[in-house]
Every structure is written in structure tokens, then in C-alpha cells.
């Protein structure tokens, strides 16, 4: 069996506003559009991935929050409706997706072997979190690839960013090894925003772009700094600066997805491709791709 590989890693934020603005048939609310800068960014990402052969999407979402280790969905078919508890007016999404349980279990087992607390989620009534659904839909709206859904272990809440990073670095290594052993070609998604301070009011309509902007200059500076580091291939520096970024920009990277992604990609020195940046209800969001398939071995 050929070695499995990661074809690309993506930073693919999940605010439900993006699906809402796309008006896909699966989502109940209707919009006039909005957040085009980011949606065009997702278009560029999809274009970049066009023709790339891969078997599975592996995603870690901060909106499946677990406090007792890292969990993996272990149900082969998941069908239900996801209603965002924070923005139910925007996201009521009917989904029907396939889970690659074999790969999920392989990552689970590898992480367990490496000392991590892990658990398979086998309850058929479980609803897939909206972060996973939004990111997957924006990256691959055809829904024709199975996914591996990984929870966000909130170890930062219990310990520190440093401990969270140690755990996510290990999970990333375990993910990469399990993928290699599986023989499968995988697309990895870290589903998170960058700076994450929201406005607490909403415009009417929500897609009124005349009111959309970053919440503060400090948040903007942090987002730009992180994006520059990604573009320069300075992954290790991103990891090194993560504690300050999480604290000062209230960054959603605190959920561990971004650190996990960089680790699974081998803390790359190659430059990432920025496909788009924009704000959503004040939070900073970047769509970024690490095109691993194009890197020479």
C-alpha cells in the first residue's frame, strides 16, 4: 500500500454568516449576500483545489468543545439539522454526510498510543457542530468527500496555551502518522477565525456590509502579523507567539485547531497562500492554504 499523504492544509474559518450569505439549498434562512471578500476567498481556495485528488477531509472545529480529551465521530452516516445556538437566525442547516470512521479510529488509536486522552463518539443522535459544517461546506460544497470530525479539547481552559500547544502538536503528529499509515490522501482543515472579539449587536439586515469592520486596531495588527508569518512560512514563530496571540487578540486559535494543523503539516517553512481576509461581526478571518502537494519532498 502506498503511503498516505496530506495534499493540503487549510485555515478555513466557520462563521455561519458565510453559508447564510451563499444561500445554499440546505440552509433555511435567505440572505441578500454579504461578506463577499471572504466568500471570494473561499472561491479562490476551491479553485486552487480543483482537480486535486483526495479521499478525505480531516477537520478540527472549535465548536465541538470537549473537556475530557479529544473526541472523534465514529458514526458512518450523520444526517440531521444543525441550528447555531448563537446565530440561529442565520444558520439552520440540513446535512447528510459521511464519516470516514476507519481513519477517525486510526487517528484516535495513534493519539492514544502517544499518551493522549481520546474517545470515539458513537451516539447516533449526536449533532455535528456548525463549525465543521460551515468550513466543510465552504471548502467543498459538493459534500462528496467523507470527513473525519475531531473535537476541540479545551485544554487551554484547564492549563495554559503552552499545554494546549503541546497536546495539539502531539495530536498533529499522530494525525499525520495515521494518515501516512492509512494510504489515504487527505485535506486538512483548521476551522477557526484569528482575532475573535465580536460585536454584540447585529445590523438589520445582518448582511449590511456598511457596518462590518474589525473591532479594534489592535486586533487588526495581530491578524496582519499572523498572516505575514504564514505567508513567510514562519510556522514555528506562529507557534512561539501563539500564547500572546491567544491572550491579546482573544484568538479562536485557543481551540487548538491551528496548532494541530501546523503540526500535522510538519511545521512547514514553505509559504502559505492567502486566499482571503475579512471580518465577520468584528472577528478577523483568513482563508489560507498550505499546498503541500506542490512542495518537493
Amino acid at each position, binding site marked *: 500500500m502506498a503511503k498516505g499523504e496530506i495534499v493540503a492544509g487549510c485555515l478555513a474559518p466557520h462563521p455561519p454568516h458565510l453559508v447564510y450569505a451563499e444561500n445554499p439549498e440546505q440552509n433555511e434562512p435567505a440572505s441578500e449576500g454579504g461578506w463577499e471578500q471572504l466568500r471570494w476567498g473561499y472561491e479562490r481556495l476551491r479553485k486552487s483545489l480543483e482537480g486535486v485528488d483526495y479521499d478525505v477531509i480531516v477537520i478540527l472545529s472549535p465548536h465541538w468543545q470537549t473537556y475530557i480529551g479529544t473526541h472523534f465521530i465514529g458514526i458512518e452516516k450523520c444526517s440531521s439539522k444543525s441550528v447555531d445556538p448563537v446565530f440561529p437566525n442565520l444558520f439552520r442547516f440540513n446535512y447528510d454526510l459521511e464519516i470516514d470512521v476507519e481513519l477517525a479510529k486510526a487517528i484516535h488509536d495513534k493519539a492514544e498510543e502517544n499518551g493522549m486522552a481520546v474517545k470515539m463518539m458513537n451516539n447516533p443522535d449526536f449533532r455535528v457542530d456548525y463549525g465543521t459544517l460551515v468550513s466543510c461546506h465552504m471548502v467543498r460544497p459538493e459534500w462528496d468527500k467523507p470527513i473525519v470530525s475531531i473535537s476541540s479539547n479545551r485544554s487551554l481552559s484547564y492549563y495554559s496555551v503552552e499545554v494546549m500547544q503541546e497536546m495539539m502538536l502531539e495530536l498533529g503528529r499522530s494525525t499525520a502518522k495515521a494518515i501516512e499509515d492509512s494510504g489515504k490522501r487527505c485535506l486538512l482543515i483548521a476551522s477557526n477565525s484569528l482575532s475573535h472579539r465580536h460585536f454584540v*449587536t447585529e445590523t438589520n439586515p445582518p448582511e449590511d456590509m456598511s457596518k462590518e469592520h474589525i473591532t479594534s486596531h489592535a486586533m487588526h495588527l495581530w491578524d496582519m502579523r499572523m498572516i505575514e508569518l504564514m505567508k513567510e512560512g514562519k510556522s514555528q514563530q506562529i507557534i512561539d507567539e501563539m500564547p500572546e496571540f491567544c491572550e491579546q487578540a482573544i484568538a479562536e486559535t485557543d481551540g487548538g485547531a491551528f496548532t494541530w494543523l501546523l503540526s500535522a503539516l510538519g511545521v512547514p517553512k514553505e509559504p502559505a497562500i492567502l486566499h482571503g481576509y475579512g471580518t465577520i461581526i468584528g472577528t478577523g478571518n483568513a482563508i489560507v492554504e498550505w499546498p503541500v502537494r506542490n512542495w518537493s519532498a
Partner: protein
Amino acid sequence: MSGEVVKSLVIPAHPHPVLCPEKNEGWQRVRDAFDNARKQIEESEADLIIIYSTLWPSVIGHQIQADPNPEWVMVDADFHDLGSIHYSLRIDSEFANAWNDANISRGLESRTVAYDGFPIDVGSVVALKLLNPDNRIPAVICSTNVYSNRAETTILAKSCMDVIKSQGRKAVAVSVMSLSNRMFTEDIKPEEDRIHSLKDDEWNRKILEFLSEGRLEDVSQLSRTIHDQIRVKKVVAFKPMWWLSAMNDNRNDLTGSILAYEPIHGAGAAVVVLDPESNGTGDKEYDEDDVEYYGGDRNVLESGSKANIPNPENTGPELHDPVEGKNTVNSQKAPKPVGAYPHARREGDLIYLSGVGPRQPVDNSIPGGPIKDVNGNPLDYDIRAQTRAVVDNISRILEEAGSSLENVIDVTSFLVDMDRDFSGYNEVWAETLGKVGPTRTTLAIRALPTPIAVEMKVIAKA
């Protein structure tokens, strides 16, 4: 109307008491305590259960569940292996909408939600499954805003009390929360469960000692300290005590009883019942600022938002202290007069009120917004919120006089825009004074002294 909170509860949020109490003696004791609390609620006159859940975080202000019958299957994000909980709840939509309106009247960002498939949080599902299994009593569920501070959370409770009083409800207030919330970060066997640390246990016991003595406001004022000491920094802080204390008029002399205190996967799970009867001890020393209306930094999106509307106290006539004299009745809780007259005057068995508008006593703000800006440009405003605020002000003045809304016998109402506002005004009237049944005359007039849309002149029995 004489609505009130007849009972207050602190309950844990984890699903174990519903799904597997038999697996651990402590979990069973928590379940038994829930059953005990349920019986106490059934034996009370309660006609409404209000849930403030820390497991439903919100960003856009506070959200209130208004779907009359939410149904789904709940699976816990962590404890999914314990099983599923099917729920079909009875929600008091009318109360939810009224609470939402009252929130907005007091300056809060707030909205109702009513969507098929909305994921009711595990804490609320556990609470209603165990405290109200047959849906005998309608319920209301409110989110916890992740950014809200003490002032905002306190006002959330006050607006809730506005509606409880105006509807004459007998409410049970429920805070869904752990005490210490640090769980074990790995799976444990049920028989291995214990409070995560001695420090957490000591703090939990101190909190419970206060609550057993009815000292709810003391716990409320220690919230930030408690959060720093024994709370993992999850989505929301130790806010429920702010809300629960404000629902009890920030009292420290309630009658408290601890029905259970046990670990659930390391977290402190307590079932506490607080009754409004005074325990006979002295009341609290209240040393944090009280607040009536929220004027914080919430409306940062819109340049024309409520926060930026010129304060009408600068746009109207000079305000006066109410005139004191023989038989006069004046209240600190009512807005200052715009001339030299008292709030009310008692003559024989009757109380005559001066014209009452919606302005708020503390900051002179106008719930629902002023009808025009400082330059005289018309503004959009909410007549329902203004009318509700007028009724609240009337209630405060009558209470100062030792009377109440139920004793109102005649009202003359003045509207500055009959065509626009009569319907909304009439709607609120029906919900409030309309239930009392005074005679009423409604007049259209050109203007009132301050930028308000409605004023009422009241005669009541003493």
C-alpha cells in the same frame, strides 16, 4: 398585580442525574435532591419556571427561548456515551416576548429565538426534565451573554421582574451552574468520582454555607473572586449569582437549604433551594452600585444607535425635585417632575397622581427611545416600551403611597401620535392596567414637555 419569585434554585448542569444516577451514590443523591426540589415547586403556587443557563452562551445580547414547544434529542458534547435525552418542553412564549421587550426597554440588547431544531442546552434540558417532567408549569429559558458584566446581568433580572410583576406571576428562578467547574480531563470510573481538589471543595463548602444562611447577595458580590479561585475559564463566568440575587432584590436574609452537594466528574454539583421568607437575620450591606438601566458599550456597530442618541435629559425642560407638602407622595424610584409639583397627593381614600411619563428615575432615559433628537428631528421609538415604562412608574409611585396598580380606578392617557401609537399603547394597556379594569380616556395632544409619546394621569384608591 403582585407577581413575585416564590422560590429560587441553584442546580447542576451535567446529564448524569438524568441518564445514570444509579452508577454513583452521589449522583443518586443529586437526583433525589432534584426530586425533592420538584416536589417543593409542585407544592408552591408557582406558575412559571425561569431558567438562566450558563450552558447556553450568546454573543448578540441575551437570547430568550420563545418556541412554545421545542422538541429534539439532546446529546452532551462530552458525555455522549451516557445516552440521549429526548425533550419536548412547554415554553411560555408570551412571557418570553414580554421579557425581551422589557430588556430592550432597559437598554439591553436582547432577542427571542423560536426555530425548529434549536439545540436547547444540556443544563436547561436537565433542569426541566427533573424539575418539571410533565410540563405542568410553563418555562422560559434565557442565555448567558459571554461578554455581559454585572450591571448587564443585574438589569436582565430586573427586566424579568418587571414582567413577573406586571403579569402577576409566581415564578421559580433557576440558575443552572456548577460551583467549582473543573472536571477530570480523562475518563474516570463512576466510583472514583470526587471533587477535583481540596481547594475547590473548600470554596464550594463556603459558598454553600452562605447559601444555607440565605446570604445570596454575599455570594453574588463574591462572584468574581469565586470565579478566579475555583472556575476553569470556560465560556461564561460565575454570573448566575448576579442574576439570581437581583431576582431576589439583592437580599441576604433568604431561607436557604442545601439539598445535595456532590461531585460530578470532578465538578461541584449542588442542589440549593432559597425561599423568600426572611430567616430573621439582618439584611445585607449592599456595597456595589445598583443599576436600573443599561447604558454600556453595547451598541458599537451603529453610528445612529441607541447609545449615541442624545440623552433626553439634555433636551427637555429643567427637572425639579418633587414638591414636599401636606399629603404629598414622592418616590425616589420615579422620574423627577418637570415643574414644581409632587408625584402624587393623597386626599381621603384617593390618591391623585401627577401626569406620569416613561422617563427613568436614575438617568432620565426613555425606554423605547425619545421621539425626537436634540435638533427636533423625529426618531423611531417603541410605543410599547414607553407605555410599559409609564405603567412601571405609576406602580412605583403607588407603592410609595402604600397602594398598588390593582387599586387604580381612573386613567386619562395622552398620546402625541394617536394614529401611529394607539394600537401598541392599547396592547400594553391590555396586558397591564387592562387586567385591573379602571375607566380610561385617551386623548391626542400636540406635544408633551419632554420627548416622550405617552403620559397618563391616574386616580387610585389609597
